[in-house]
């Protein structure tokens, strides 16, 4: 929202464009921001470099798993983008993944659920946990990071209790539709990635072209001003956390599908940080009020490219985190520079 107002600038040549924009009744920024173009460029450069270094990289045997592995983090990232746009954050999503996946895995083993029921169950559990966060944050009026640190522990406790000190073994391949294997793709396109792209497109439309979506940006820009302008702040904030819970539930299904027939209690570890990293690399401002889902998807793709690139180059796999850290710093630095440039012109 800040971009549109600042372009009504002091330089004369800018004037006709602004008039045209107001004539169309649109105050929306250009659909693709600079960060996203840069990200696409970086990903392309990385892919070219990696395929030169290891010829196996750009083959379908390597690229398809990369897309499949991107899907869950990107999916959680979409929800996280919505939350961060409102000025909040959710560090409990890793624990939500754990609870959802253990519930679903155990039910798959015990009562042989069908695919739709399993997905619905996972999404419902995620939604309930997300609404716990949402209610506490929106109506308890406490800082999001503190509450979600707390609920992360509570959810983890719940998950560990469900695990009961062992792993879940012999999970049937009901969810293979979302997996890496042949069952997981149509014409070479993995279903999980496709589903994630569809959801990202819906979220993009919602955030950009509906009143409800614009309200989320307004809340992130200035919650008090938004409230005075008639935005139902608490309800919108609650919605953002419930939405993230639902998406995290779906992501948990992807995680089960990508794993083996055994589910260990460390499932979901570190996913909250990976999702936040994807969001931030995608150009969403951690202060709220600015950001896009497209950037997040690209950010998740970049993170996953780095991770699998490091493995394929036979470097120590932990080195990937170092690069992710550096990419976060570069992305935020670029964002700061752009903000500064916008303020001065």
């Amino acid at each position, binding site marked *: 929202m800040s971009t549109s107002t600042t372009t009504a600038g002091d330089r004369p040549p800018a004037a006709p464009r602004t008039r045209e924009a107001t004539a169309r009744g649109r105050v929306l920024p250009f659909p693709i921001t600079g960060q996203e173009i840069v990200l696409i460029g970086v990903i392309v450069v990385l892919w070219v470099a990696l395929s030169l270094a290891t010829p196996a990289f750009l083959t379908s045997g390597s690229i398809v798993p990369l897309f499949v592995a991107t899907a869950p983090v990107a999916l959680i990232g979409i929800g996280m983008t919505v939350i961060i746009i409102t000025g909040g954050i959710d560090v409990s999503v890793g624990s939500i993944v754990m609870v959802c996946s253990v519930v679903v895995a155990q039910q798959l083993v015990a009562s042989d659920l069908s695919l739709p029921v399993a997905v619905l169950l996972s999404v419902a559990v995620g939604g309930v946990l997300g609404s716990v966060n949402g209610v506490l944050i929106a109506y308890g009026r406490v800082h999001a*990071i503190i509450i979600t640190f*707390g609920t992360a522990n509570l959810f983890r406790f719940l998950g560990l209790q469900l695990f009961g000190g062992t792993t879940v073994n012999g999970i049937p391949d009901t969810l293979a539709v979302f997996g890496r294997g042949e069952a997981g793709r149509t014409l070479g396109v993995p279903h999980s990635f496709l589903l994630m792209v569809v959801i990202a497109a819906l979220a993009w439309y919602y955030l950009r072209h509906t009143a409800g979506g614009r309200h989320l940006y307004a809340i992130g820009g200035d919650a008090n001003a938004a409230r005075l302008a008639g935005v139902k702040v608490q309800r919108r904030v609650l919605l953002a956390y419930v939405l993230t819970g639902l998406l995290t539930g779906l992501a948990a299904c992807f995680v089960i599908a990508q794993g083996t027939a055994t589910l260990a209690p460390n499932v979901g570890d570190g996913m909250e940080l990976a999702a936040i990293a994807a969001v931030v690399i995608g150009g969403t401002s951690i*202060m709220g009020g600015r950001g896009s889902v497209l950037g997040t998807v690209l950010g998740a793709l970049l993170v996953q490219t780095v991770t699998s690139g490091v493995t394929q180059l036979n470097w120590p796999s932990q080195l990937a985190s170092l690069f992710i850290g550096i990419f976060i710093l570069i992305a935020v630095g670029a964002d700061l520079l752009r903000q500064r440039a916008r303020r001065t012109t």
Partner: protein
Amino acid sequence: MSTAVTSSAPAREPGPSTSPPARPSRLRQLPAALLRALLTQRIVLLLVLLVAVVVTFVVLSQRNYLSAPYDASYMSAALISAVPLVMLGLAELLVITSGRGGIDLSVGAIVSLTSMVFGFAYGEWGWSLWLAILLAAAFGGLLGAVNGFLVAYVGYPALITTLATYYAFSSLAIVINAQQPISTPPIQQLYSTAQPVSVLGLPVPLGTLTFLLPTAVVVWLLLNRTTYGRRLYAIGTNDVAAQWTGIDVRRSRFTAYLLAGVVSGLVAVVTVAQFASARPDAGTAGNGMALPAITIAVLGGVAITGGIGRVAGVVLAALLVVWLNAGILLAVPGNAGTQFQLFALGAVLVFAALLNGLTTRRYGAR
């Protein structure tokens, strides 16, 4: 525009002397005053909770509900886990108090990386212990300075900066020695020198006397008896106003992150001695050390918006959690016990946060 927004939600008046209008009859207002003290003075609340926890477990212990006696010597032996908790809690106190969304997610990663560096210096290069400890503190400070430079001088949001450095430092810690811990003879001997010492007949872990107490005292002196402390509270409360009074806001904030790094570096030494090996995942394994440290700081009454926080609150909060955890381990033995510790930590944190919100609404911003 976006930078200053987060901390401005409640219009906080820094004046401590917000005396309410005079009320009648002192006796009648006593319950109200007690309630007010309990709700607004975090230290009072923590003391009450601490006493409640200890009394509960002592009573349970005397009725033989616990798997081992919960007595003074058990409680003092449990303090070993308070050492990293209090020290990192104090590190978070410094950083969070510095304001503008200050937080440090990277303390655990700093502990990991510094552990390895300390392990190299003391275990492999044969440095003397004092020199190696100095190196650990300096190296931790250097890593903290990276955070501080990015946050204070470049203007990065603290949450993101420390998330990025968390990734970078923890990765380096693992790669630096190809995932291998360092446990050469000098480091193994470090474990035997760190045996509990007897104070008034109680086995007190050595780390509490050599590291925890000095750190707590130094941080307390720093915050309450030096100009820097007053500056830190000033920039945390309102950094624009602080700037106008002539405080070098950037430098003060930078120093807070640097000091947090130094404290984390010292925690690395304690951790190495405790494990008898320098482990590359010392501060990042499982939940890591950062989340419990932030939890302790928040529970201890440090306001996440900056400018408010006391050493006593952090210490009491850590004692509460440590003795609660120690009791849980006796009441629920084995694996389930550690799970209930997670539950207790989460529940206490959510409770404390909700209470903060309630008191702010009821008594106004403190």
